[in-house]
């Protein structure tokens, strides 16, 4: 391993600019003549719009334009789309209402876009926006996913009777029923997977621009996938043809999924820029982020696990209601279906699984993918069930898991996936050792002496990452393929630009991708620049989410770099005057058994461009190659996290004392960055388990609409995390990478709740386990957990 190659903990190249304030985020960019957009948003969760009076606003100083849904409709601007078709059990396609970018006669959540005001300055646009008067007729709001489908509830979209978007299922119902019939023990739990608000540090922003000379549009936006944004804006919303639309996602300050989606504000800024003939900028404020960024999770689930007398799992049955919010966001439909149920087998041999999911509309912000997307929800179901089942049958939770681990690969689960590689026992063994599981009874006794309750919780998670084989997702309803593309452009002096369709918004691609290329081409890492986030530079790409940029994005780069080497060897053959087949390339040096002369990579690059040593008939000049990589399977990162905590029953305060994370991510490109991803993921998962929760009141007002009420995890909420790795390289990509971006957020919530319920001695607590919730739960007496 070289000091900067694969496996080296190289310091992040991009951090110099980020920590010295030299990053260029969308809001840092200002275009000549730029005007400012402010959105008039609905204060009602559900209402019809009787009239919008824009007269006073239009006369307000500095107001350039006021547009409403009528203007959007008149210009035939399309609505937002949901790119994944789900079919119900009965074969019918999902029932989706329209998702207009500015309300068409009705608003469906607090924060819904009603009108936009464009002003010379931001303050003037705000002043004018206050002068837009909207006459609403309030309708009853539907807020609670558990009851949204009940008779008598208000109807949110005419297209979706009973507010039901789909009633989907996966698995073999009959086999599951038969297995439950034979069970010696059944563990049943009811769970709520709490709704989360992503809260990236950089709020969303957009600048739309129109060039009348070229008749083309440019959008700067906070996106995790600018090419997908361009595709949707061109092909579905119809703002401009793809070749007349440039989308740039510059530095982006965190996304966690919320910046995958195509949002109304981006569409409106682009459209309005053409209308007023000036660039139009919008930067969301924190309140808008709370109200109108896509939220995450929000499931209500009943799950049952059937066991035989030996503690072997026979079957799993799951019924989930998933809150999709008021409109279907870009990938909303896929998250509680194909990103969820296929993970319900966990790390275990489960012969039969049946899962039913109702996708439900409510008068709340749209819900879509959020770090982990479906997989944290699945892991929460499986790992809570495993823990409770172990307790109910009097088994050690670690032993019970071991007994049911998948041990041979490939392993086909009953829910689509085929696990390709893993060693679950190795992670468990290491985790137990690092967590000093043997010393737990003594620590529990020590806590009890102080009046504290100590508990331990396991989470043996698995995820499907490296999203995703295009054919596979196509057969499941995806509207796109999920390969990745790359181009390696070698300059005549031997420095390299790597163009990637992945997008970095905190992941450190400028470093890790450069590590790969510098190692492959044998050039110093500072000779490699990574270019991403601009549709005029990078030909196409599917973006970054689902822990896919290492496994899929880097594999494309790997392929392109290989092609560069093949071509460079040809060039070297001509220069060295030896047969091409005799040329060897290693550590940046071209050599041949046929000569004792050698060439460096930059020397060959120069020869490729000056083209003096070969004729046009023999070889094309230049050194630039592209590649697309489409994975043949998902990747399956897995691991064991153990949380140990102490509860003060007097106050309900819970202090996490130790956190052990043993993960199998396959090949690690940069272990320092991987650890950072685990830290962040665990923090987010602990946030979900103990702190975060979006609360709407009965009328659909978001109560947790600021940091005064929405609790984000802070450094002090976490202990120093013990991290260790096991590795079974992924066989379905050339680098053996599995992905690490979501693991912590997937693993953490059940580990925390399993630890809290262990400490409390009963299972009756929901996320977030706030001090209030824990204090209340601590009032209840422990239930006896013996085998019945």
């Amino acid at each position, binding site marked *: 391993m070289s000091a900067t190659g694969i496996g080296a903990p190289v310091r992040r190249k991009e951090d110099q600019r980020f920590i010295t304030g030299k990053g260029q985020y969308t809001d840092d960019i200002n275009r000549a003549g730029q005007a400012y957009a402010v959105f008039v948003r609905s204060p009602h969760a559900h209402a019809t719009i009787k009239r919008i009076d824009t007269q006073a606003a239009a006369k307000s100083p500095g107001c350039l334009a006021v547009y409403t849904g009528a203007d959007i409709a008149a210009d035939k601007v399309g609505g937002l789309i949901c790119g994944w078709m789900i079919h119900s059990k009965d074969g019918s396609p999902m029932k989706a209402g329209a998702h207009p970018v500015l309300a068409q006669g009705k608003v469906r959540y607090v924060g819904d876009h009603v009108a936009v005001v464009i002003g010379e300055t931001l303050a003037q646009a705000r002043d004018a926006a206050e002068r837009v008067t909207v006459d609403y007729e309030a309708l009853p709001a539907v807020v609670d996913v558990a009851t949204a489908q009940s008779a008598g509830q208000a109807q949110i979209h005419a297209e979706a009777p009973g507010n039901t978007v789909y009633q989907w299922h996966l698995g073999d119902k009959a086999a599951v029923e038969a297995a439950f019939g034979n069970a010696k023990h059944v563990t049943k739990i009811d769970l709520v997977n709490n709704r989360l608000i992503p809260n990236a540090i950089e709020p969303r922003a957009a600048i739309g621009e129109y060039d009348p000379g070229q008749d083309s549009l440019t959008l700067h936006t906070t996106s995790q996938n600018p090419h997908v944004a361009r595709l949707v804006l061109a092909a579905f919303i119809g703002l401009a043809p793809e070749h007349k639309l440039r989308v740039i996602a510059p530095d982006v300050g965190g996304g966690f999924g919320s910046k995958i989606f195509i949002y109304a504000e981006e569409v409106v800024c682009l459209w309005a820029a053409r209308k007023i003939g000036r660039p139009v900028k919008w930067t969301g404020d924190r309140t808008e982020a709370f109200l109108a960024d896509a939220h995450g999770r929000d499931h209500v689930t009943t799950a049952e696990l059937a066991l035989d007398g030996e503690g072997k799992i026979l079957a799993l049955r799951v019924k989930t209601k998933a809150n999709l919010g008021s409109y279907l966001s870009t990938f909303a439909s896929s998250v509680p279906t194909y990103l969820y149920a296929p993970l319900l087998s966990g790390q275990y041999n489960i012969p039969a699984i049946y899962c039913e999911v109702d996708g439900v509309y409510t008068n709340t912000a749209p819900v879509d993918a959020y770090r982990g997307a479906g997989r944290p929800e699945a892991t929460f179901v499986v790992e809570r069930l495993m823990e409770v089942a172990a307790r109910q049958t009097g088994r050690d939770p670690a032993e019970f898991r071991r007994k049911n681990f998948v041990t041979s690969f490939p392993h086909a689960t009953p829910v689509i996936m085929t696990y390709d590689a893993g060693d679950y026992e190795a992670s468990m063994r290491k985790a137990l050792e690092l967590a000093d599981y043997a010393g737990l009874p003594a620590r529990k006794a020590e806590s009890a002496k102080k009046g504290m309750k100590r508990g331990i919780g396991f989470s043996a998670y698995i995820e499907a990452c490296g999203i995703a084989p295009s054919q596979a997702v196509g057969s499941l309803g995806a509207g796109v393929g999920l390969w990745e593309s790359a181009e390696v452009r070698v300059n005549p002096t031997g420095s390299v630009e790597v163009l990637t369709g992945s997008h970095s918004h905190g992941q450190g691609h400028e470093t890790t991708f450069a590590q790969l290329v510098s190692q492959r081409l044998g050039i110093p890492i500072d000779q490699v620049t990574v270019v991403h986030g601009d549709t005029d530079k990078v030909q196409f790409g599917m973006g970054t989410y689902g822990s896919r940029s290492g496994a899929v994005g880097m594999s494309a780069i790997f392929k392109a770099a290989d092609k560069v080497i093949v071509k460079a060897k040809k060039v070297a053959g001509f220069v060295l005057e030896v047969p091409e087949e005799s040329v060897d390339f290693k550590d940046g040096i071209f050599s041949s058994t046929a000569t004792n002369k050698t060439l460096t990579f930059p020397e060959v690059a120069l020869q490729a461009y000056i083209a003096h040593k070969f004729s046009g008939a023999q070889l094309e000049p230049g050194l630039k190659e592209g590649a697309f990589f489409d994975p043949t399977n998902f990747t399956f990162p897995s691991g064991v996290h153990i949380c140990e905590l102490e509860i003060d029953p007097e*106050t309900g305060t819970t202090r996490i004392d130790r956190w052990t994370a043993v993960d199998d991510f396959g090949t690690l490109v940069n272990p320092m960055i991987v650890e950072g991803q685990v830290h962040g993921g665990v923090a987010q998962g602990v946030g979900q388990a103990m702190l975060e929760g979006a*609360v709407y009141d009965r009328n659909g007002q978001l109560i947790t609409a600021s*940091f*005064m*009420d929405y*609790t984000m995890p802070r450094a002090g909420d976490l202990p120093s995390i013990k991290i260790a790795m096991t590795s079974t390289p992924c066989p379905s990509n050339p680098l053996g990478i599995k992905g690490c971006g979501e693991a912590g957020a997937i693993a953490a919530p059940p580990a925390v709740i399993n630890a809290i319920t262990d400490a409390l001695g009963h299972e009756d607590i929901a996320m977030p386990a*706030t001090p*209030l919730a824990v*204090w209340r739960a601590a009032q209840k007496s422990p239930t006896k957990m013996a085998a019945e």
Partner: protein
Amino acid sequence: MYAFQYHRPQSVADAAKLLASNSEAKLLAGGHTLLPTMKQRLAAPKAIVDLARIAELKGIDKKGNALVIGAMTTHAEVADSAIVRSAIAGLAEVAAVIGDPHVRHRGTIGGSVANNDPAADYPAALLALGATIATNKREIKADDFFKGLFTTALQDGEIIARISFPVPAKFGYAKFPNPASRYALVGVAVAQTGSGVRVAVTGAGKDGVFRHTAAEAALGKGWSAQALSGLTTDANLMMSDIHADAAYRAHLVGVMARRAVA
């Protein structure tokens, strides 16, 4: 934010004049409450009178048996002050648990007291210690100053100049922070003063900071956590929100009172 006029007087007298001549003027101290509300357009003062350059509002002093803190003294200055630590160490602790470092380096004792947020920490300390609030016009006892949620005895044009704390025999403060905001979900200050035991509770009461007479009576009989073991607090008088219902707050008042004494 809406447009406003900005003034930065050098003396309390000048500040008072500016207030008197601008009916819609607001004093600006650390700005940690005022500026966010202005940014959200929830407050729209026509003029701002910034107290930042008024030297007479700053500083910490020991005068006889009293600790005197200027209104524009930041929470960080109080937390770090050797004078405060030696006179009323627990008061430095009160300042040290307010917000986060940013807040403590901007927020001021005068601003906090004038604002009388029902979840702020200082009001409990002032009330328990029997402090006196000196304004440009008069002196007001803490018992007469805090009048309910965000309401004080301050009249139009009145500027807090300094706060004087008689040094107690004993003082302690225990805070249970709101998980999100880190303001007090329940904060209890206990003091043994020349005029007896005083216990004040912030964060919990429907009407803001209040004196807990039952706790005072119990501690009057013996200064120990045990003396408070049977203490109850009427949940009907407690606030209720997503972070804590009234029963939980009432319970925490007892727990925090015992921890403040210990």
